């Protein structure tokens, strides 16, 4: 039995792009307990609903996080549209879906890169980010923004994508698909990666469910849960199937994401093939009155926007439950009993997005 010592981890830490603080209680090299502290990025933007009207607030909702930005704005709009009974035109739904999948691709590639970096695999990091730039190019060409798009609005979208451009996007994806597959192969076949991550930070299926894990963290543990299966936006018409792995360790959480990148490419291709014609927005009149819980699947997992409105132009309450927040309890469980040197890798495998978690 060694003595217990407390080692602070973060907030400013080389492997963390964002600040989160963990107090690690160690016994020799093993973590006995991890106590997280957040709040370094807390802005309090939910309270801004009092100052911005519900249409302008879309832009704030988008800035909850710069990675899942587009999905946040869509979820917010979904909630408002549900309360007001607005039918969003099919073309807008399809284009929203395409952009959401592009967000997923860029987010997962970003994450794969960061994980590779945490393992000390610099080359893979650079490679993943190079591929990500290809995705961002199309994102920028169609929305005008690389990470913050500002393209979603209540009732539809701001910009249409021309059919020519849609074709080009599919061609481009076809071209980078082999590159994506190759970088995935590194995760599935490389000995060092497997050795580093197999059996590390295991989260059992029961624990994942009970502690409220969502997204790739839950799907890596064998829980088949993905809000996209419920078919919001255009997912219902694209034959969506969730990617599920069963070991519950770091490697499987990686594999879920790397597979999802390819699945996203497929979804975009199918969406383009089925793209309906028509208007891209619906006129919005009046103010919302009522409440709604809107769910969506972000790159990091299930996200919930709760809106309560009372017929004024400022809504009463906007509550965001982001995937990272519910993934923190599972993370604390995963960290128990692992070695100090593995902490960065395990923390990264839940894909923490602190900007989201603290709003």
């Amino acid at each position, binding site marked *: 039995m060694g003595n217990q010592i407390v080692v602070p981890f973060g907030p400013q830490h080389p492997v963390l792009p964002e600040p989160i603080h963990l107090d690690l209680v160690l016994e020799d090299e093993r973590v006995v307990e991890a*106590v997280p*502290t*957040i*709040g370094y990025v*807390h802005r*309090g933007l*939910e*309270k801004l*609903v*009092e100052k911005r*009207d519900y249409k302008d607030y879309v832009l704030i909702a988008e800035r909850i996080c710069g990675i899942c930005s587009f999905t946040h704005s869509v979820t917010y709009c979904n909630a408002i549209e549900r309360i007001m009974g607005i039918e969003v035109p099919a073309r807008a739904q399809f284009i929203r879906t395409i952009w959401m999948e592009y967000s997923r691709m860029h987010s997962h590639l970003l994450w794969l890169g960061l994980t590779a970096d945490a393992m000390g695999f610099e080359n893979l990091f650079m490679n993943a980010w190079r591929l990500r730039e290809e995705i961002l190019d199309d994102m920028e060409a169609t929305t005008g923004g690389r990470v913050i798009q500002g393209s979603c609005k209540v009732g539809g979208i701001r910009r249409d994508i021309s059919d020519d451009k849609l074709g080009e996007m599919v061609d481009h994806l076809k071209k980078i698909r082999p590159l994506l597959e190759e970088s995935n192969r590194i995760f599935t076949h490389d000995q060092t990666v497997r050795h580093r991550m197999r059996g590390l930070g295991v989260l059992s299926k029961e624990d994942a*469910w*009970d*502690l*409220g894990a969502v997204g790739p963290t839950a799907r890596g543990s064998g829980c088949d849960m993905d809000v996209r*299966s*419920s*078919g*919001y936006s255009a997912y*219902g018409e694209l034959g969506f199937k969730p990617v599920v792995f069963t070991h519950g360790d770091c490697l499987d959480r990686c594999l879920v994401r790397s597979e999802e990148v390819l699945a996203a490419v497929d979804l975009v291709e199918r969406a383009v093939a089925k793209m309906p014609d028509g208007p891209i927005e619906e006129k919005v009149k009046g*103010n919302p009155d009522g409440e709604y*819980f809107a*769910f969506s699947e972000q790159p990091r997992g*299930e996200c*919930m926007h*709760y809106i*309560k409105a*009372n*017929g*004024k*132009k*400022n809504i*009463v*309450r906007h*509550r965001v*439950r982001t995937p990272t*927040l*519910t993934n*923190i*309890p*599972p993370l*604390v469980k995963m960290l128990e009993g692992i070695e100090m040197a593995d902490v960065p890798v395990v923390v990264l495998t839940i894909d923490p997005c602190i900007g989201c978690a*603290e709003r």
Partner: protein
Amino acid sequence: MIEQKHTITEIAVTDLLKKTGECHEKGHRLVQIGCTPLGDCYEINYTFTTSWDFESLRITVNDGDKIPSISGIYWGAFIYENEIHDLFGLTVTDINVDFQGHLIETRIPSPFKNAPPVTKVKKGGDA
């Protein structure tokens, strides 16, 4: 699209632990706990689900009321309960991992505590 059903049941604070326990036995997972300040009281939603049917237990509390923690049933609930304590200034008793108000440190204590001014000040000021 599969319509997401959402049933909201209003319950008394004293029933909270019993009802939550029932949800746990049915194999529900905890989706979230969220609080809404309503001017004179607070509404707290505990959302559970198994698939696409969501179920919310709703309690209404006032400033100074004590809310029992459900973290004994759902271990992960501590994160939401500490959040409610820090942002709304409500007291949650017996949380398994109690941060004592240090989970989210804010410049002004309990910023969401009072009701949003719009509901009071801007009466009729609807544009």
